[in-house]
């Protein structure tokens, strides 16, 4: 189940775990990424907490935890080569996997059509 946030993140939710990344729109707006800081595996976040940082040549931006939960896996490949986020934001450029504390939180997320309207 693919969901989005108004903060330009995507979540691919499979059972109780969501894979999280930033949208193509966000990656384009940021421009060339040169640095990614990811959370530790095992870190616990509440929805809306700063979970990761991305930096383009020009500026730093926060990536929020789109739902509450515990980090189960992070994508070291984008730390080693941040340009992967620009070239494949919805695929190889994923950031982390988070085990959901409250599945009800996903109800407030946007579906793909709603997100497309947001950025139109």
């Amino acid at each position, binding site marked *: 189940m693919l969901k989005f946030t108004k903060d330009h993140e995507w979540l691919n939710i499979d059972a109780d775990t969501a894979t999280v990344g930033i949208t193509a729109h966000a990656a384009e707006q940021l*421009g060339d990424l040169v*640095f990614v800081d990811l959370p530790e595996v095992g870190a616990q976040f509440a929805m809306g907490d700063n979970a990761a940082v991305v930096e383009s040549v020009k500026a*730093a931006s926060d990536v*929020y935890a789109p739902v509450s939960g515990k980090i189960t896996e992070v994508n070291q490949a984008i730390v080693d080569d941040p340009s992967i986020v620009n070239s494949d934001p919805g695929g190889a450029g994923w950031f982390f996997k988070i085990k959901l504390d409250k599945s009800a939180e996903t109800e407030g997320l946007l579906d793909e059509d709603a997100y497309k309207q947001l950025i139109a």
Partner: protein
Amino acid sequence: MSDSDAGAASAPLEKTALYDLHVARGGRMVGFAGYEMPVQFPPGILKEHQQTREAAGLFDVSHMGQLAITANSGAIGDAALALETLVPADVKSLPTGRQRYAFFTNEEGGILDDLMIANLGDRLLLVVNAATKTADEALLRSNLPDTVRLERLDRALIALQGPKAVDALRKLAPEAGDMRFMDVRQLNVGGVPCTVSRSGYTGEDGFEISLPQDAAITIAEALLADDNVEPIGLGARDSLRLEAGLCLYGNDIDTGTTPVEAGLTWAIPRSRRAGGERAGGFPGDTVILQQLSEGSDRLRVGLLPEGRAPVRAGAQLFQEESGGVAVGTVTSGGFGPSLGRPVAMGYVPKALATAGTRFFADVRGKRLPVDVAELPFHKPDYKRT
């Protein structure tokens, strides 16, 4: 996610003569110093940076201020001496057809703006920063004597920078190839009368071309018709100048920094120093001359972060990995595409301003190691001979 770079511009923004060209070529327009300027074009900042280092880039710098000073006597020396009361530079000896870097100072020895001064034979041409150009003009109007005349030039300004810049410009103005670094000439560029200097803000060979606004798009398109020339936005302009160790007014220098602290003493000639033939005689001369002989408490230095995280302007510098008090501040910082790593500049105590000295920069609550490094990070390739 959030974009901390979100603009907060509310006043209506002005457009330069090249606005339509930027939009037509896909420039992402942002508010900068009161103007709508392209921060980047479709290739993006990294590619635009490399394009300028390896071939040539065309920059719209028409937002900058251009001012002309003439003397009623007709003698350029009179205009030069009048200007020398506001800048610790040797304008009097500046030969016709040459340009110098200088700065306006205040009574405390701080820097009001940095600028280029060119001697065009019958007048001095000043190029000043966009954000400070109104204040600069007011400063000149209220301080220059009645014996000189100040004129604001509403002209466009195009920078053509990079190792292939000379070949591109030579197609439109063959004499450009004869110029050396910091030469200034009146040239016909594609038939348009322009004032051309061999200078820039990238650490590359290149030119700045002052021209009538109504010819700006035609000449810019003619330069861009060269396969080696691409339009470049403000983002790459910033990363290029940072690698070249060049100061950005408002970040690395301002009214709170003196030229000595900023490491710009090379721009203050012997003639304006203690014992020189026109020693002092500029605002803040007491402070600046004293610092020239005794040194300043702090200095601007290059800083190389050890890790991959950019260390940006405003980051505080500590000697300890935890605790302690801040001893310095980062004034410019970001990713240096030519170096493939973060680079920064900032102010540290003079005793600690030697290459290799380690500091820790506070970035989002973490102390990241940064080492003092020689400037520039990228060695310039100017045409000096």
